[in-house]
């Protein structure tokens, strides 16, 4: 059973929900927001048990075999290759590791080598947590997200990155259920609608959790009623919760909310 926590808009409370949902229900946690992982901050007594480097394949050209025909450049969808009169230049940071250049090279001048793109850190605390850390400057987090996902065995809470583009899609596509976290603001409603569109396309089961409940805007609740999106729980708007969060503390006083949300998900799956 994999439950992914996503949102569209950043800062609605994905991390709050993910760490507390995982902790109070005793489920392994996977932080796939590899550009800014922060779930680990909530598990201060944790021991790092494993750190492994993740690489992806990028091309290198054997200039002695290359005849500068330009085929590799023409098949590259990401402009990672330039062919000059007497030099072929590769920009590995633009490469998406599709392998087309080496496949189509008539001279077999292109081979693929490993380029480190980040690491996976696994820690043991009251629950197990694994997260990815992307190298600064790496253009796409998707290969690293895939690598962290391969660590998932059994029940898992997945903390997805914000947005509705490739990293979010990759993070939620294999989940059994998606929880969308929204806050009562027009901005969050706007992005919630986008996230719902993505989830519909992926044909996934989902529900919503409203964070900062009590703010005056009622558009999110209305939207959920209209679209028949089950609201699995409401986390109150509270400066105490915000303070707790800023110190990296779990929300023990609110544990029932997170147990109810989990029970709600289990009923719907």
């Amino acid at each position: 059973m994999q439950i992914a926590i996503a949102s569209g808009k950043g800062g609605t409370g994905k991390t709050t929900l993910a760490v507390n949902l995982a902790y109070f229900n005793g489920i392994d946690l996977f932080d796939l927001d590899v550009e800014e992982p922060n779930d680990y901050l909530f598990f201060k007594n944790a021991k790092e048990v494993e750190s492994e480097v993740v690489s992806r394949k990028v091309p290198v050209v054997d200039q002695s075999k290359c005849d500068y025909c330009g085929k590799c450049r023409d098949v590259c969808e990401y402009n990672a290759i330039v062919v000059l009169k007497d030099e072929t230049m590769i920009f590995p940071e633009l490469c998406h590791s599709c392998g087309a250049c080496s496949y189509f090279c008539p001279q077999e001048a292109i081979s693929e080598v490993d380029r480190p793109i980040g690491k996976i850190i696994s820690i043991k605390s009251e629950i197990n947590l694994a997260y990815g850390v992307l190298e600064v400057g790496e253009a796409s987090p998707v290969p690293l997200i895939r690598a962290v996902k391969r660590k998932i065995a059994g029940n898992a809470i997945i903390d997805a990155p914000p947005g509705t583009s490739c990293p979010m899609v990759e993070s939620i596509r294999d989940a059994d259920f998606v929880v969308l976290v929204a806050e009562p603001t027009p901005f969050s409603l706007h992005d919630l609608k986008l996230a719902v569109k993505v989830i519909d396309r992926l044909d996934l089961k989902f529900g919503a959790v409203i964070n900062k409940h009590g703010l005056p805007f009622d558009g999110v609740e209305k939207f959920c009623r209209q679209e028949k999106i089950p609201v699995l729980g409401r986390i109150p708007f509270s400066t105490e919760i915000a303070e707790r969060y800023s110190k990296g503390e779990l929300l023990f006083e609110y544990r029932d909310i997170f147990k109810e949300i989990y029970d709600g998900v289990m009923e719907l799956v």
Partner: protein
Amino acid sequence: MKIAASTFKGGIDDIVAEHFGRAESFTIVDVDGSEIQTVEVLKNSAANQTSGAGVAASQLIVNKDADVVLTGSVGPKALAVLQAAGVRIYRASGLKVGDAVKKYLGGELEEITAPTAPKRGLGRFKG
């Protein structure tokens, strides 16, 4: 000698654009001595690429056998390609293409040898 200026609609009376990789067009001027022989406007097919626009634009310029680029800013990847191809780059943004070419021929333009960022994002932050 061929001089390529990053431009908007393109042409000898157009203004040299601040951006290189995402410029709308390149105006390529063929110069013999100090006389402009031909003017060609090349649509920049790299302008709307999601990534690597500077690299792809540099490839266009190299394919056109340009010797000189007139622009405002060039990123690190485009600079690497242009330098490897022996293309020299001069700062001329804001000038009319015709005037920029004259100033280049008169040795009045500053050469760009290190990557720079455009002065104003992609037009979002003005002022």
